């Protein structure tokens, strides 16, 4: 599998915004039938990297390759035209519009000629219902507003749209982060399905528990640098946890809380709690 030509590849990609180094010497590749998880805490550079893949940013150094050939994306549209489809967190869905109208937004099928050229609503509704069915969602009424759909259904709609319109590589930006357990598993099931259909998937998350079941390889980012790529048989879930910036912090927090619990009767306990709160506060300051 690894011998296969990567669909999308980053070679020594760096990105600077003025004096801020957002990405430094990133190498990663995604192949057909591969789910490549991009892990990292907030501020690790995940967003910058996928925006570079998506054509929103251009790399300061290094290059992107699609099917082995170097490419330069001037705009998200160009990336899309080469089959790199990114589903950002806002999903590019309009809540007040129907599932069908959202699915075909900007790419509406038309029938008729001249002044009678019109939106082919029947075909659009049929395809939407069909594509959603394929991923396990029964769209009860393709004319219902997207706003009435659940978070998982919306995420799936956005992904299904990208797939239907010819994506070779799917880049999913935190598709499960705002979802409950069953909703997240709906999305993860679909990610597995897209992989089975021969797509390459880049799956961005900070949740190892979501990444591990569907991922084939894992690239960890920390402060704009890659901590390396590991295949699934090389690492365990816990190792990934530890490697992520959060791993150590969580362990520390656990230890501190345990210590605090032991001193419950001790007046110092309160102090310890304040300390934790302060630490967390500092941590969040670092992130933003």
């Amino acid at each position, binding site marked *: 599998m690894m011998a296969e030509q990567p669909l999308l590849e980053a070679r020594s990609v760096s990105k600077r915004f003025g004096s801020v180094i957002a990405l430094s010497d990133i190498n990663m590749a995604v192949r057909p039938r591969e789910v490549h998880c991009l892990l990292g805490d907030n501020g690790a550079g995940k967003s910058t990297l996928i925006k570079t893949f998506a054509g929103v940013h251009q790399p300061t150094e290094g290059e992107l390759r699609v099917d082995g050939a170097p490419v330069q994306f001037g705009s998200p549209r160009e990336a899309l035209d080469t089959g790199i489809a990114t589903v950002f967190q806002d999903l590019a869905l*309009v809540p007040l519009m129907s599932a069908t109208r959202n699915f075909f937004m900007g790419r509406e099928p038309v029938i008729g000629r001249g002044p009678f050229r019109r939106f082919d609503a029947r075909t659009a509704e049929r395809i939407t219902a069909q594509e959603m069915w394929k991923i396990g969602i029964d769209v009860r009424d393709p*004319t219902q507003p997207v706003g009435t759909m659940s978070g998982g259904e919306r995420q799936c709609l956005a992904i299904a749209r990208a797939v239907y319109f010819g994506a070779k590589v799917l880049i999913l930006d935190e598709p499960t982060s705002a979802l409950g357990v069953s909703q997240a598993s709906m999305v993860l099931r679909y990610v597995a399905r897209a992989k089975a259909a021969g797509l390459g998937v880049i799956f961005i998350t900070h949740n190892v528990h979501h990444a591990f079941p569907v991922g084939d390889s894992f690239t960890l980012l920390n402060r704009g640098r890659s901590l390396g790529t590991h295949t699934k048989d090389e690492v365990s879930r816990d190792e990934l946890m530890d490697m992520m910036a959060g791993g150590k912090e969580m362990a520390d927090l656990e230890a501190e809380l345990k210590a605090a619990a032991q001193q419950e009767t001790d007046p110092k306990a309160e102090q310890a709690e304040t300390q934790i709160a302060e630490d967390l506060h500092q941590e969040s300051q670092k992130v933003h």
Partner: protein
Amino acid sequence: MAQETADGAAPPGQEADERIQRASFLSRLLNRPELGAAAGTIVVLVVFAIVAGDTGMYSALGIVNFVEVASLLGLLAIGVSLLMIGGEFDLSIGSMIAFAGMTIAIPAAEWGWPMWLCILLAFTVAILWGLFNGWLVIKTGLPSFIVTLAGLFMLRGLTIGLTRLLTGRTQVSGLREDAEGDWLAGILGGEVGHGFFTWMGEVGIIAQRADGEPSVSGVPMSVIWFLLLGAIATWVLLRTRLGNWIFAAGGDKQAARNVGVPVNRVKIMLFVGTAVMATLVATVQVLDVGSADTQRGLLRELEAIAAAVIGGCLLTGGYGSAIGAMLGALIFGTVQMGFFYTGVNTDWFQVFVGLMLLVAVLSNNYIRKKATEAK
């Protein structure tokens, strides 16, 4: 997959959720934006049939009267509803009515231009004004409410200033002879169906005047334009790509842009639409009355917005209907003339409009909440 589909049971990997009901016909109907306006129209028509049934409001003449009033506001409201669905406002259309009226009247009355040329000039100016409004809103990124409010003052001031400069007055009259026999004036203004109404008068379907003419000499062209353009606007909204783009541009312009909808072009087009509608109304009025006045169209922009909102348009864009706006205008026309026929002081009309608007906004708000929250 095909087999699973053939079962007609739950889709693969998921049980049918028993908590979710299939959308019934009734609930679909309730989701239509124009429902409130339709109910309102029926209520208003029935109420006045009861209290003003014997006053002649529902005679042929009475009906033509209130439908004509409604059609003039309705033409504006159609343009405004599309623009509002597209997420913008145009407060300059009231001033545009006066400006367009003068653009027709001054060349015709003062310089002796043929009427059709004056009308074409007015529409050209309207298109340019619409382009300017749209361009300014998009370039500055400011709310269109403010940009077109500035337009409201500028255009009204320009109308008064230029008219006084060129004619020394604020009113230009005597245009009826100029319009006589003009081909374009005949299409945009006047009436149709004179023969039909004469026949109806002769066989007694409608009343005849003492001189043997029917009480109604024809259907005003403004009503024909109102119905025709309303139908076109509805068709565009619901059945064309452009319609989908209008909803998308107003619903979430960033999302629309991300999937390749030409949001700016759509919005500019809609600004041109409102300016053109205002000019159409101005033309009809100038041809009907035979004069133009610098004060014409005052506050019409707000009435048109009110009609659109009563018709189900959300102030935040992305939702609404042209039919709703037409019904909103019909409510306006019916109540205005109904007050006249029942002898209620017309001062109360504005109180009614205000209340109606408030009720409409509250119910629209409720609908939007229902539509944007997951069930």
